[in-house]
């Protein structure tokens, strides 16, 4: 966290000095007065004012800047749009070479999301869920997972055997668990440790 301590004749002057050093405006700073200072008699026994000024960072802005930087350094021309809701922050990437940013089964997109999440959590006081999306990939993936879930449930019921899925990230497993929680003929559970944790769909006997 960036902060400076400044000393000047008055509190206001000290604050201004610190803001200038940090190169920020007052609305982006947290000011603590360490010493109010005192004006002495005829300029004698003057005591200067001392203040501490801290830069306030917006975790979400940091995250967005981080993501934009990374995409640019990856050699991809793309823009990032931010959509904030109560539940989560969505950062949506659009531009050229999006396939490169999504990767096989979305693994590059998931990695970008994980790294962006780490940056947010460094600055945020409480956990802020971040979704990084591109070309509606998350929605398309969700539809594909829902279909896959139904297909595997049918297979498990028909064969009477457990069906194992490929390892999936936690929120993708959650989609499958949720979809099949309504199906009384099968039960779902996860096996293994991250990042190789996978879902098993088992028929109910």
């Amino acid at each position, binding site marked *: 966290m960036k902060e400076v301590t400044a000393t000047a004749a008055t509190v206001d002057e000290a604050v201004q000095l610190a803001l200038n050093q940090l190169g920020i405006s007052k609305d982006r700073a947290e000011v603590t007065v360490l010493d109010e200072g005192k004006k002495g008699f005829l300029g004698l026994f003057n005591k200067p004012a001392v203040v501490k000024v801290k830069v306030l960072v917006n975790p979400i802005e940091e995250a967005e800047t*981080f993501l934009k*930087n*990374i995409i640019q*350094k*990856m*050699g991809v021309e793309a823009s990032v749009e931010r959509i904030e809701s109560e539940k989560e922050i969505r950062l949506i990437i659009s531009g050229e070479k999006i396939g*490169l*940013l999504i*990767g096989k089964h979305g*693994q*590059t997109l*998931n*990695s*970008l999301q*994980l*790294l962006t999440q*780490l*940056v947010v959590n*460094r600055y945020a006081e409480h956990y802020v869920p971040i979704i990084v999306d591109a070309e509606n990939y998350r929605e398309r993936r969700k539809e594909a997972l829902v279909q896959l879930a139904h297909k595997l449930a049918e297979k498990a019921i028909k064969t009477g055997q457990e069906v194992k899925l490929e390892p999936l990230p936690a929120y993708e497993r959650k989609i499958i668990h949720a979809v099949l929680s309504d199906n009384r003929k099968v039960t779902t559970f996860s096996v293994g*440790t*991250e*990042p190789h944790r996978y879902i098993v769909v088992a028929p109910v006997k």
Partner: protein
Amino acid sequence: MKELKELVETIVQSLVDHPEEVVVTETLDEHTITYVLSVHDEDVGKVIGKQGRTIHAIRTVVHAAASQQPKRVIVHVKDKG
């Protein structure tokens, strides 16, 4: 590959508590580019992450960026001591 090295540096510096101590060294040979990350002792865990999740994500992103050129890219965290 100047951009790739910058990519690695940018990612790592954004994750650690001591960004000024991040050093990325690049070694080139015929078919591969190797990046060795050296960070402050307290930051080693941050760069690797729980069960290697963070370093895995860094590698995935770097590999994606590197797919635009022919060489294979390796990312290591420097062993201390």
